[in-house]
């Protein structure tokens, strides 16, 4: 794949129109008010038939999972990703991400966590009954999801330092713990809560990792108000507190099988989620970089100092050239993602980490340089690069910090 197809460009055009008409007029409220992004995202899903596409994907996945549960096809067969030959499926998901990120990366985060992380966790680890109970509503955005692993005391070392626990009491589990920095936490209807099984005598690092599905309003569950943060204002982030939340086996993703699994398997499953998250970041970075470049080129032509447009100065030209290099690299990484998906392949963990590291750094560098091209105006909220620079920074922190990506790449190389 070397360029978007005619269909892909049409999708881009129509998504751009939606953003112009439905997102841009609300940008002020999303950024500086308290407008949660969900209604606009749902409108986008309805407008473009995304819910219907999600429902079709869901039906296919469930049909396979049912065959696997009945022993008609091997488990691996049900999990296997099938290439569609064209990459259209991936393109249809990535193009809206890119276009939304040109204006509002927070909306993509809220959407991605709900459908991509939470929905995918239920679809990946849940039994058929659990997929039906929670998966479909998450994938269609009828329900907003949150995926909670980070805790005040455990971030990069998410599993090692994890204190959240599940204690068995007869047929029930009693859940305790607190989670922080949870995207959609304040508003989520459906929460995937990740914790450790209370296994007396087993070292904390070796305990089983379990995923439970919680719902808004359950006794003992508190969802905080949105936290104040540097950027990404359109994506509500919050804390979760669990005090003796009692749940049955039906809320443990995978049910009894999850308890039979070996300690490492839960971690492995979460890793698969990280990988998907990491490839989405390249598309997000591309949207931010495209927009920053476009705005910078425009300003470099218009802004005159010493009787010349600043674009005539080599120091400004160097910034624009570096932005273009980043744009081309990110574009090619996104094309590679689409191409891999067309063939039903996925990246290695190291490769996905390398892509995430590059994408996050490129987005931050480009956005900060765009602020520089704009000078004092760049520092003012009126000029959009200010918001994008604050938003871009999060790409180096969530879904694994830069340092953690570097560790993963090095481990892959040195293995």
């Amino acid at each position, binding site marked *: 794949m070397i360029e978007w197809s005619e269909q892909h460009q049409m999708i881009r*055009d129509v998504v751009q129109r939606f953003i112009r008409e439905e997102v841009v007029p609300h940008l002020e409220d999303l950024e500086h008010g308290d407008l949660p992004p969900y209604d606009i995202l749902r409108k986008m899903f309805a407008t*473009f038939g995304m819910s219907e596409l999600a429902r079709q994907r869901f039906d296919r996945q469930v049909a396979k999972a049912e065959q696997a549960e009945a022993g008609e096809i091997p488990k691996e067969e049900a999990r296997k990703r099938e290439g569609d030959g064209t990459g259209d499926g991936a393109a249809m998901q990535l193009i809206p991400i890119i276009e939304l990120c040109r204006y509002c990366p927070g909306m993509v985060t809220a959407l991605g966590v709900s459908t991509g992380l939470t929905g995918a966790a239920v679809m990946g680890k849940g039994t058929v009954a659990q997929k039906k109970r929670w998966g479909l509503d998450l994938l269609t955005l009828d329900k907003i999801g949150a995926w909670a692993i980070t805790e005040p005391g455990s971030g990069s070392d998410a599993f090692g330092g994890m204190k959240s626990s599940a204690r068995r009491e007869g047929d029930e589990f009693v859940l305790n713990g607190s989670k922080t920095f949870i995207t959609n936490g304040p508003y989520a209807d459906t929460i995937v809560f990740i914790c450790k099984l209370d296994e007396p005598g087993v070292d904390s690092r070796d305990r089983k990792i379990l995923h439970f599905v919680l719902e808004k309003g359950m006794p003992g569950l508190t969802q905080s108000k949105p936290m104040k943060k540097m950027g990404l204002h359109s994506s509500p982030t919050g804390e979760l507190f669990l005090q003796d939340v009692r749940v049955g086996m039906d809320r443990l993703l995978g049910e009894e099988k999850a308890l039979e699994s070996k300690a490492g398997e839960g971690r492995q499953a979460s890793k698969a989620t990280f990988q998907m998250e990491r490839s989405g970041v390249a598309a997000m970075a591309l949207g931010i970089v495209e927009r920053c470049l476009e705005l910078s080129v425009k300003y470099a032509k218009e802004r005159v100092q010493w009787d010349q447009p600043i674009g005539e100065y080599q120091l400004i030209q160097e910034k624009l050239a570096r932005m273009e290099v980043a744009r081309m690299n990110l574009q090619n990484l996104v094309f590679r993602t689409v191409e891999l998906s067309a063939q039903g392949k996925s990246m290695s963990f190291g490769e996905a980490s390398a892509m995430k590291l590059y994408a996050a750094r490129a987005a931050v560098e480009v956005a900060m340089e765009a602020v520089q091209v704009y000078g004092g105006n760049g520092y003012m909220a009126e000029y959009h690069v200010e918001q994008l620079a604050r938003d871009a920074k999060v790409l180096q922190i969530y879904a694994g910090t830069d340092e953690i990506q570097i560790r993963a790449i090095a481990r892959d190389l040195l293995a």
Partner: protein
Amino acid sequence: MKIVVCLKQVPHSDARLDINGDGTWIQEDNLKFEINSYDTYALEEALRIKDAGEAEVVVVSIGPDRVTQALRTALGMGADRAVHVNDSAVEGSDALGIAKVLAAIVKAESPDLVVTGLMSDDGNFSAVPPMIAELCDMPSATSVLKVDGANGSLTVERELEGGAMEVVELPKPCLLAVQTGLNQVRYASLKGIMAAKKKPIDVKTAADLGVGDQVGAGAAKVRMEKVYQPPKGEGAELLEGSTDDVVGSLMNKVKELGLL
């Protein structure tokens, strides 16, 4: 019921326009194009009639290869098939030349209804739609803001000067040239866009349509002489001072000029 929608691809409203080398039109290389805004309303109106009952919607456009994208977009929104007149011989045509090509297609299709935009965002002539109607010997209404009774004869509301409306009844077949804002134009869905790949686009030349000798610069009676940026006007007066001062002097000016 069959509906023909004529649509034109014009430079994107966000595009930066520069005048071309010989000063006769704008520089079109590397420009982004889109469907003429008036025509999107025409298409939407046709699709609404289709949604309400049985209708085949045929979209028609004239222009180079890039026009395929406009037609695919229309197919993605729900049109059934497209006719694309892709013929360098048509370049340089005046409004009558364009109307002859479109009229030839309308005659061949013999639809119950032709819907067009009132004018194009780039040319602004408003000449082609009535010409098509005349060449096809059908009644027409321009500046249409409301369409009723798609099955029998049509009752349409036209916008007149000063906000007045006129109601006219037309027998079918007829042609409607619609004003912007008569409906809310839909978005193509992702599935619709993917399905558009398989819908047919019939490519034709002016000769195929039997009007090969009536089009192009040679046949044109109207020729584009010159396109230019008007020189910046003089005589603008900037009112300065506090808001109250500015409002005061503005009121005096308005009274001075007898505008109130």
